[in-house]
């Protein structure tokens, strides 16, 4: 069955023999395409002054934490953290990103799920980690009421921008808004 394979393998063996004097045996460790791509994305990351990263296990670059500290907008003065989990299918699949704190934001729900188009329906393999972190940063500068994940917050923002700002401040301080208590994220 499939004898073609023995022929192909023979040819490969020949090529190998021609190229080198034969490699030593043993299972060699190969760098995967996903790892190499993440490595490339990380080395091109531009974090600026408002973002930092933390790699709990530096040998596992597929899992890390991003800190965002907005220096303008209504979320200024806060420190928000997101877990990044990247699957071996990256970049065919977007990274899985989740906010670790419970915050009051129209595009982030109380479980930390983030509504950002490039993390879901608009993810393309040509996008990179930089695109994702720029997107996250943008969410804090321009919370978007028309694409809500936390509908109450979105409505609040749409109907009463000043009131929404006050609620954001109080939630960031660890207070409660509309019956929900939020995590303190002020630096």
């Amino acid at each position, binding site marked *: 069955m499939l004898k073609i394979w023995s022929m*192909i393998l023979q040819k490969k063996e020949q090529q190998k023999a021609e190229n080198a004097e034969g490699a030593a045996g043993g299972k*060699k460790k*190969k760098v995967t395409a996903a790892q190499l791509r993440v490595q490339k994305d990380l080395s091109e990351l531009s*974090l600026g002054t408002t973002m930092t*990263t933390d790699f709990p296990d530096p040998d596992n*670059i597929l899992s890390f934490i991003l800190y965002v500290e907005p220096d303008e907008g209504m979320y200024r003065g806060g420190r928000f953290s997101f877990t990044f989990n990247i699957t071996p299918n990256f970049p*065919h699949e977007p990274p899985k990103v989740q906010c670790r704190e419970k915050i009051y934001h129209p595009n982030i729900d109380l479980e930390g799920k983030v509504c950002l188009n490039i993390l879901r329906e608009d993810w393309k393999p*040509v996008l990179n980690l930089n695109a994702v972190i720029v997107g996250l940063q943008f969410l804090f500068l321009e919370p978007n009421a028309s694409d809500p994940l936390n509908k109450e917050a979105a409505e609040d923002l749409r109907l009463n921008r000043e009131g929404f700002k006050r609620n954001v401040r109080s939630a960031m301080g660890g207070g409660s808004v509309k019956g929900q208590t939020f995590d303190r994220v002020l630096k």
Partner: protein
Amino acid sequence: MATAEVYPASEPERWTYLDRVRTRAGPFTNPDAFDGTVVAEAVENMKILVIGAGGLGCELLKNLALSGFKNIHVIDMDTIDISNLNRQFLFRQADVGKSKAEVAAKFVEQRVKGVKITAHNCKIQEKDEDFYMQFQIVVCGLDSIEARRWINATLVNMVDEDVEDSYKPLIDGGTEGFKGQARVIFPTVTSCIECQLDMHAPRAAVPLCTLASIPRQPEHCIEWAHVIAWDREKPFPELDKDDPEHITWLYQKALLRAHEFKIPGVTYALTQGVVKNIIPAIAATNSVIAAACCNEAFKIATNCAPSLGYPDANYMMYSGNDNIYTYTFRHEKKDDCPVCGNLARELVVDPAWTLRELVDSFAVRPEAQLKKPSIRAESKTLYMQSPKSLEEKTRPNLDKTLIELGLANDEEIGVTDPAFATVSFKFKLKFQKSE
């Protein structure tokens, strides 16, 4: 002519015509690879996977079942839509809304006695390497480049040079209107789908910033309307791509933007095509391409004749646009293919070197010339120039020797440098003590 005792002894009449090619060598048969007494049994015992149960998939399942394959799996996440019924002939009106994989499997099982078809109603990405490892041949009838690239990369990554069974031939069929192609990929041996990406007209995979600030093509304007304007204005609670009112809204938005940037070519039909990612489907084209794919599967499984892919031509294109035209050629493997071509180059190093010496050496090596290299091994981050936190955590490694870092002869390392945004390098360490 003497009749040899051949398998199967049962149902000889049913397989009369198939047995003429399964049991006798033909003019192109390689006598070293073909044994007519065992072919039928071998094919029956072979597990073959069909990816996609749509236009091509229906044809493929029927063809394979009638070609003597008896253990077929089919995977498709889609459900049957009324618009499929004109060409996806395994489905009936009563099946609308049901799983394509399940209905197709059941239909063919009922019509072709003795064939077992296992349906998987899910995304191909939900299955892992163990799942794909159980098959001897994978046949694709997909309409998305994304899914093709995924299965291609998966099959290439599964290759273990020392295990013959880890090489899964991939047969890929595709159609667009009156045009189509059938190709065979022997992962890591012949040109892969990633190598051949230039054969596909690129479909809008445009960075959002381009859409937002510098549209150049009518498709950019449509995508802008679709991705940005729609979300911003939400004219309807949810985009229904089948609702003409919604498409009209997108079309008008795209048209305004196209005027603003003086880009011609935005039409209603193009809007619909871009938004729905429409690939026009023609039953006859599917039928021609699926037949070609099934033929390749049969040839690979039986060795009755040389298949595409080895040793020469691997790509058959078909066009029925103006007349019938086919052309079969060899698409070359690309050395810089990110999936199969980026093979590790050998790098001679002294195991007593510190990592710093290795990092510095990349700047002067003529084959690399990297000023700011970041380096990782498969399970160890050796040194990353950025981000800052990772640089700090890996900096102590710079003063350790390669041995101390646990690196071994023949181990692969990945090297990236921001100056070479489009490429990354793989090297295979070759330990050599310097005198």
